[in-house]
């Protein structure tokens, strides 16, 4: 039975349509990812689900409650970790959690035990009485996860949970999410524009310009890209391209002293290929398509092509994917 249901949801801001007639549902216990570039409508969708925004049309419901009509019931059922920290830096870790417990009217006897339990889960018990202003980015994020889970929500929302964190901390956060999933029996709804993170989800919706353009498991999404990518270096690349065209009717292209071709079942194709070529093969490698390739295939762009704010990030991502392609 789905715990989140979204039907024909649309959100307009004046002339801008941020979310454009999307429908999907998430089953209980699932880790569901929203993948898309900045400005695709991910945060707007989360804000509607979290009752911070009301939809222009269509509906969104969580745990059987309508997000627009029964906001308080929805709010009790969800925990949220926003993109930017929403902790009070002038309070201690304990005080932040206690504040939360009171807001959510958590049972008085339960409160202390639950705070202690959650501080243990995120390994911050020894920092209980420290002010948040002395916490690192990763510690803050962990505390927010503890706070988001404090009131036993049925759905946990994570909006870009690892944005701005270093790779090690990012991995730690993911380990937490994985282990929590086992302990707390919770549904996770997250947004991200990191491909590697999206791979951790049970199902992914790829969203671009306010529309869902694909929704499936990571493995099946990758099947959308027909075939694998084979990278080959031979003694005579020019001639090899000619032979491949004649023998297999595949257009290979030269790239950085080697050649690249796309084919289905690349692992089975490679032995035939090497056998058929008249010149010596120096090296060969096979790359399975990534979600980035899926996004590229579906939209004709890399996921962070347009990165409006941080050009360095775009460049870095470009370099990274370029390197990946070369590998």
């Amino acid at each position, binding site marked *: 039975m789905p715990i989140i249901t979204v039907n024909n949801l649309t959100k307009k801001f004046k002339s801008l349509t941020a979310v454009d007639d999307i429908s999907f549902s998430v089953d209980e216990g699932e880790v569901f990812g929203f993948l898309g570039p900045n400005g695709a409508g991910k945060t707007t969708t989360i804000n509607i689900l*979290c*009752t*911070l925004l009301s939809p222009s049309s269509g509906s969104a419901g969580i745990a059987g409650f309508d997000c627009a009509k029964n906001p*308080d*019931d929805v*709010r*009790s059922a*969800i925990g*949220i970790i*926003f993109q*930017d*920290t*929403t*902790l*009070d*830096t*002038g*309070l201690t870790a304990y*005080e932040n959690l*206690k*504040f*939360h417990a*009171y*807001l*959510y*009217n958590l049972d008085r006897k339960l409160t202390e035990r639950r705070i202690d339990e959650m501080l243990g889960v995120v390994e911050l018990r020894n920092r209980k009485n420290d002010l948040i202003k002395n916490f690192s980015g990763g510690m803050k994020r962990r505390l927010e996860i503890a706070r988001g889970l404090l009131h036993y929500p049925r759905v946990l929302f994570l909006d870009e949970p690892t944005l701005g964190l270093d790779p090690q901390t990012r991995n730690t956060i993911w380990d937490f999410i994985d282990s929590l999933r086992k302990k707390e029996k919770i549904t996770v709804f997250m947004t991200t524009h990191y491909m590697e993170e999206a791979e951790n989800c049970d199902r992914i919706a790829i969203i671009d310009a306010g529309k869902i353009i694909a929704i499936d498991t990571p493995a099946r999404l990758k099947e959308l890209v027909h075939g694998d990518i084979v990278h080959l270096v031979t003694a005579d690349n020019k001639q090899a391209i000619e032979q491949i065209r004649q023998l297999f009717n595949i257009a290979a292209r030269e790239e950085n002293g080697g050649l690249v071709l796309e084919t289905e079942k690349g692992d089975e194709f490679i032995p035939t290929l090497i056998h058929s070529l008249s010149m010596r093969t120096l090296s060969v490698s096979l790359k399975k398509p990534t979600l980035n390739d899926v996004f590229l295939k579906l939209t004709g762009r890399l996921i962070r092509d347009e990165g409006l704010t941080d050009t360095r990030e775009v460049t870095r991502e470009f370099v990274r994917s370029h390197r990946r392609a070369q590998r």
Partner: protein
Amino acid sequence: MIQVRPIYVICMREFIKFFREKSRLLGTLARPVLWLFVVGNGMSGLIKPQAGFSYLQFIFPGMIGMTILFSSIFSSISIVWDREFGFMKEMLVAPISRLSIIIGKAISGTLISVAQAIIILVLIPFLGIHITFMQFIEVVAVSLLVSFSITSLGILIAARLASFDGFNIIMNFLVMPMLFLSGAMYPVTSMPPALRQLTRINPLTYGVDAFKHVLLRNATPPLGAEFPLSLDLFLVTAVSLVMLTLAALSFRRKE
């Protein structure tokens, strides 16, 4: 839709932070001390005592009013801080009503202002004023009302202020004029008619007037109170309720 536990914890948060920030406590005392003993003594040379009341004694009720004005505005502006630093979202996605958030902010802002007003009363022995225990109770009661009205006004402003950039504008075009046009520093009776009209629409005028009633019992205008105490209290209360209602409405629409 008023929820007691959320209101309680919103207040507790403000109290904890108020007492944790020592600079804020110190600032509370520093401003009135500066006004009373530096500006007050400087002006005393110009303004002769009238009917047994010195200028220094005259501005003391005004200084309580000033302390409440700054404290209440500062407290309610915390809503803008909360919004800027994200904490407001934590409250907005919780299963509590917007009204509870407003009431929590109003109560905490009011009580912190009253606490600061009481702290100012320790200066009384240095001014040659004697107050009875009854007067003390009256000062606290008037402080509660005045603090509540200014905090409500501040919340109304904060609910409409998009970002912290607007804060300076509010300080220069609202808070400072409110102070200067309240009769806190000089008698309003000696002002040009146009400015006098402005003092009459300033809620702080009636708050300061009420403090003059309580603290400068036997003084008469221009140094003493100008309006009847009942009118002062009625107007301050009315302003509070109107402001808070408008704030609640505007907060609900915006968020």
